[in-house]
């Protein structure tokens, strides 16, 4: 096989870093009020800001010091005063340093001030697990932010969705947290490049990357991959899996989730977050509350174990969701023990 078709296929496939690069570039071109800030951004350490300094100038492309709290609060203030900042916080674990700013300023100001404030600001951060960086860089903390009213939260599972959601986020007048699952940075997060230059994906609309009838598997971020891989394997055994990708956790597309489970009667949720009070917990709780009548089996959560991320490569992988764990969970809800 020659490499030409492979290269063409590849060009038509949008990966995570390209998606970010394109979404940010297009929106910054479209609206002068959009500015981009991040640690080591100008040196393009994370690889999604090539040429931005040249294209948009130093006033709109800024390197941030190691000052996460002030960076987040500053972005909130700038948003209230007329800019539309994007802040690249690089690694989600660093968000903890700015938690008060997220909760007390970003999420609360509009409400507390009776609607006077608009808060058009996007915070981007990688879920940097599964890379041998140990517990201080590997958190997946989006469930903590789901407990905070006033934020919108996206966890895309492929490049095209990331692009379309991020563009929507930048145009939204509300604060958006964009969590980028780093296990999808390579091949696994690629998808057909959108044709449309104004490719926008609305928040709160799930996608169904695979239809099926026996069991619903809901995937979050990198969990979608495991769901699809498991679905492919299980198809060989005659099990028909429907995969649902909520894409945004706040707002959540409850109608789509309830509809799928109404059809299949069974549900497994794949969530890379820590198990307790995870997004998976929320979905399971919502299902038993609003979809009890459709449930024909326990709702199972395939999550990370409630552990910190160990450094050693021989220790790390086992604590996360995997295709195998999803397959086992599906078998359990189908009552097919092997």
């Amino acid at each position, binding site marked *: 096989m020659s490499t030409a078709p492979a290269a063409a296929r590849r060009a038509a496939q949008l990966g995570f870093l390209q998606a970010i690069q394109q979404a940010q570039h297009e929106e910054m071109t479209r609206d002068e009020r959009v500015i981009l800030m991040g640690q080591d951004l100008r040196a393009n350490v994370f690889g999604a800001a090539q040429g931005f300094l040249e294209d948009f100038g130093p006033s709109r492309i800024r390197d941030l010091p190691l000052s996460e709290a002030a960076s987040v609060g500053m972005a909130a*203030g700038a948003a209230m005063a007329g800019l539309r900042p994007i802040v690249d916080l690089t690694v989600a674990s660093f968000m903890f340093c700015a938690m008060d700013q997220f909760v007390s300023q970003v999420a609360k100001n509009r409400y507390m001030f009776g609607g006077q404030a608009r808060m058009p600001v996007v915070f981007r951060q990688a879920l940097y697990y599964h890379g041998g960086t140990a517990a201080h860089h590997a958190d997946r903390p989006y469930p903590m932010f789901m407990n905070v009213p006033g934020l919108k939260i996206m966890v895309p599972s492929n490049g095209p969705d990331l692009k379309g959601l991020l563009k929507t986020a930048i145009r939204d007048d509300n604060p958006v947290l964009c969590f980028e699952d780093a296990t999808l940075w390579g091949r696994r997060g690629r998808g057909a490049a959108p044709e449309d230059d104004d490719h926008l994906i609305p928040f709160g609309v799930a996608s169904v990357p695979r239809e099926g009838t026996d069991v619903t598997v809901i995937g979050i971020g990198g969990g979608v991959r495991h769901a699809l891989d498991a679905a492919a394997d299980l198809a060989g055994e005659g099990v028909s899996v429907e995969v649902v990708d909520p894409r945004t956790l706040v707002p959540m597309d409850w109608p789509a989730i309830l509809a799928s489970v109404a059809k299949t009667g069974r549900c497994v949720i794949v969530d890379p977050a820590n198990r307790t009070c995870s997004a998976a917990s929320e979905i399971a709780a919502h299902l038993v509350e609003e979809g009890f009548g459709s449930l024909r089996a326990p709702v199972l959560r395939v999550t990370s174990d409630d552990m910190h991320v160990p450094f050693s490569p021989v220790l790390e992988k086992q604590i996360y969701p995997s295709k195998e764990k999803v397959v086992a969970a599906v078998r359990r809800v189908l009552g097919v023990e092997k």
Partner: protein
Amino acid sequence: MNLERDLALEMLRRMLRIRLFEEATIELFHAGELPAMVHLSIGQEAAIAGACLATTADDYMTGNHRSHGHPIAKGARLDRLMAELLGKAGGVCKGKGGSMHLADFSVGSLGESGIVGSAIPVAVGAGLAADVLGNGLVALCFFGDGAANEGVLHESMNLAAVWKLPVVFFCENNGWAVSVRAGELTSVEDISVRATGYGMPGVTVDGQDPVATYEAVSAAVARARRGEGPSLVEAKTYRFHEHAYGLRVKNSYRDQSEVDVWRQERDPIDLFRRRLLDEGLADEAAVEALDAEVRAEVAAAVEFARDSPYPEPEEAYRDLYYVEGAST
């Protein structure tokens, strides 16, 4: 400084607006009409009025829990502030913010934070917006001596300094953080010396003198508008009432005699009124007239607030998100 009559009277007016507004809240408290305790700026009026007068109504501002004085001195309507304190629908935040969290975007007030220190970087962000948009505005950032120990101040001062943002950090050092004397848990006597660590000018002024504060902040504002970056101004002042009016601290922490000395000898309004008369900038009649005007304004504010209805229950469920086309 050669004080002009108009400016001097405006200083007095703004100080009086704070004082009389807050004295009205004390009455409301005792009448059982206030839903919560209030943190009063009485005693600190000169610092606040001097600082705010050095900015325009378009300039931005943020502050903390002791939040009444700032928007008042920035020129906000008193009636909507008072209604907010009563939790009424006509409140500037529709009754959802309350006493510690006044915000009035119409006069540049981007809001005060009950989480002490938390609004400091928000002011830096407003300065960033002014810088990027090139609109010549500055951001005035109020914080207390206690807040000066929050890490986010340090991050904010460094950021404003390296980007030369038009921000004025303004510390109301009233000598106490609740029950703790400033010198006890703050490692320096003058908080303004911390400016050194950020390569910005730092100055301490007499916070009981609105002219001293006005001049220091005016210089800082001018510097900021010239694009030369932030400054730190500290005003030494004093809080005349308990940390929050109505709070009963179990163990007494400051001598009544200390309070008495400040009240009797360092009341900023008494001092300034006397100065106006002494310097012939105003006569008794003018001062009385001003007092009467402000009293009437405050009385009207109280009436407005009382008359304002409580918000509808559904109001609790609005304003979490901005929704295109929804009424605000």
